[in-house]
């Protein structure tokens, strides 16, 4: 309305009305000129002091959990805002269950729109429940803020580049739900020999021998047997478990994954194995050729440690859908870093001869190895009879677990 031509005409009217002493014409031109000035000033100031914040009820959510996203908008100035339009970018895979979301021109992104009016120094909060139905590290933002002058004639637009992230952890299920057998779901993972004993894990009882510590006496067993019995502890070395995850689902490791469902099932299986192992008091580690944002381009390596399930699940949750290295290279690198006697569970949707070769070598070094094959990939003949190979799938059924077929045992037993 107040373009340059209009302003020119108004100034001309003002200059005509002054010497002509035409008060009404002066009043008309002055009012419109003042309105134009106010409009321009408002436009300059409208977005100053506007603070936009996102808050999640939790920054790390379990799969299927509903997280509350709170949007807080503050007007930290005296100038009120008749309207403020907010266009916040969020992942298309995590739409809020309330509020309208529109597809963005950017791939896999959506736009959440909100419209508010803000009085001086007013704070407005909007809450949106977000069902976490897609694993990953999800970025929210940047946000586009749009407002204008009081009369709605001019619009100002600014982008707030600040982003926030929400990590949705992978789905964790009991191993039985993956179709794995209830007893020894991953085969025999413990080494037969022991070097050290874990006094917290009692494997059984034997006859008390002179020289045994009095702490070793198994009193309940002694009462039952009517003679002194000593506790047999489980060897500690067998309690280390390394989960190795192949983030690639095709034979060639480069490029993006070709089968997202297979990768999701692989990650879910890895997470479930880690959770099961922690509940069985294993010290669990994780290795993968997958990429984690702000992580190493060498892939992921988390050494075996006790009680770090949350950390492992978060790493698995943040895993992107592409591989940074060949999986066999990660396994090769793992060989010297794997503690003696540690078991290895490999989750992969594809097994190349190179991968099979490294697995066989690891097995020969005394590590119990279990291969969990995701989908319908072929098993290289080199693995037959040497390590336990189990297959889970079909990959597309990872969201609806009952549709998973019972795991098929492909290989022979572990040593």
């Amino acid at each position, binding site marked *: *309305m107040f373009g340059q031509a209009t302003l020119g005409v108004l100034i001309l*009217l003002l200059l*005509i*009305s*002054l*010497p*002509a*002493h*035409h*008060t*009404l*014409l*002066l*009043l*008309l*031109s*002055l*009012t*419109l000129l*003042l*309105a134009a000035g*106010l409009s321009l000033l408002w436009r300059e100031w409208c977005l100053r002091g506007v603070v936009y914040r996102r808050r999640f009820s939790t920054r790390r959510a379990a799969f299927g959990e509903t997280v509350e996203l709170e949007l807080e908008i503050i007007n930290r100035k005296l100038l*009120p805002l*008749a*309207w403020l*339009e907010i266009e916040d970018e969020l992942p298309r895979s995590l739409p809020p269950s309330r*509020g*309208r979301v*529109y597809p963005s021109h950017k791939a896999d992104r959506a736009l959440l*729109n*909100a*419209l*508010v*009016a803000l*009085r001086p120094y007013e704070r407005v909060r*909007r809450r949106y429940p977000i069902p976490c139905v897609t694993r990953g590290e999800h970025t929210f933002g940047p946000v586009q803020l749009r407002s*204008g002058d*009081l*009369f*709605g*004639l001019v619009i100002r637009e600014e982008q707030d580049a600040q982003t926030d992230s929400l990590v949705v952890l992978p789905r964790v299920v009991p191993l039985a739900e993956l179709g794995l057998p209830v007893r020894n779901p991953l085969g025999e993972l413990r080494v037969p020999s022991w070097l050290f004993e874990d006094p917290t894990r009692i494997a059984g009882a034997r006859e008390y021998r002179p020289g045994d510590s009095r702490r070793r006496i198994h009193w309940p067993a002694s009462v039952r047997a009517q003679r002194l019995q000593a506790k047999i502890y489980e060897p500690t070395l067998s309690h280390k478990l390394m989960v190795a995850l192949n983030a690639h689902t095709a034979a060639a490791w480069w490029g993006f994954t070709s089968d997202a469902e297979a990768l999701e099932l692989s990650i879910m299986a890895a997470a479930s194995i880690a959770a099961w192992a922690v509940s069985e008091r294993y010290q669990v580690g994780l290795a993968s050729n997958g990429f984690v944002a702000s992580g190493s381009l060498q892939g992921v390596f988390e050494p075996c440690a006790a009680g770090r399930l949350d950390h492992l699940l978060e790493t698995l949750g943040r895993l992107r859908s592409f591989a940074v290295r060949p999986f066999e290279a990660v396994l090769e690198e793992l060989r010297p870093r794997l503690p003696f006697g540690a078991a290895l569970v490999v989750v992969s949707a594809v097994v190349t001869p190179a991968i099979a070769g490294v697995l066989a070598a690891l097995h020969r070094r005394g590590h119990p190895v279990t291969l969990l094959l995701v989908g319908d990939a072929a098993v290289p003949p080199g693995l037959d009879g040497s390590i336990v190979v189990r297959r889970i799938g079909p990959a597309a059924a990872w969201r609806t677990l009952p549709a998973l077929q019972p795991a098929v045992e492909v290989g022979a037993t572990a040593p």
Partner: protein
Amino acid sequence: MVGARGQLVRAAQVGLALLLELAWLFAWSDAAGAWLAGGGRGPALPLSILAGVLMGMWLLATALLRRGPPLGVARTLLTVVTLGAMVGAGLWAAWMAEPRALQRLDWALLGESGASLRAVAAAALALGACWRGIALARRAQTMERAVARSQLGAVALGALLLLSLPPPLRDPLPLGTLTSAVLLALFAGLISLPLARVMELSESPRHAGAPPLQLTGPWLAILGGTVAALMLGALVLASVLTPDLLWHLLAPLGPVLGVN
């Protein structure tokens, strides 16, 4: 914006639009009446008739739009009613100016007494009122339409005031009515713009299902207060600003701009 509050804002928008249209139409009617009769005979078309024609046409066009008869039928009906309003207004103006001429169908007397000119002016004003009434009946009061309406009002008033610049044309003008018309038109125009913007945003499909924009009392008070303060400021400035004062104020800028 939905619900009772939305209906209220929509009604306010229509009310303000009617006020704006009526303000500039009546300013022209009053000025035309003053110029044609040399003062003393009032507006070419009284406020009540002008308002009646404007609102009548708005109601008729709104009803036609809602009922949805064939476009041809609606157009014909609106044309007939507009012509009827023009003829009626013209006859009424002529009757009020010189009833004897109309009784005797004395065209010479009509011309001499100036009644014919008043009749033409009244018919033109009735046409304007019909046009604005029909234009207002469009259902969506968008920002674009609100801006166009305000611009038309400002241009109409500006043109009228420019025409009245020479003293012979300015002297007979009823200043009180004109001042009221200008102030009313400005107030209605400036208030209707933000309402149109807010309604347009609220009803945009992008915000469907989202919490509605709240046009609360404080917000309306801020809006009304700002517009009132703006107009008051303009009134004060208009009353104190003279060419001498302006030159005096701009004098310090002379050396900077290189003007002596």
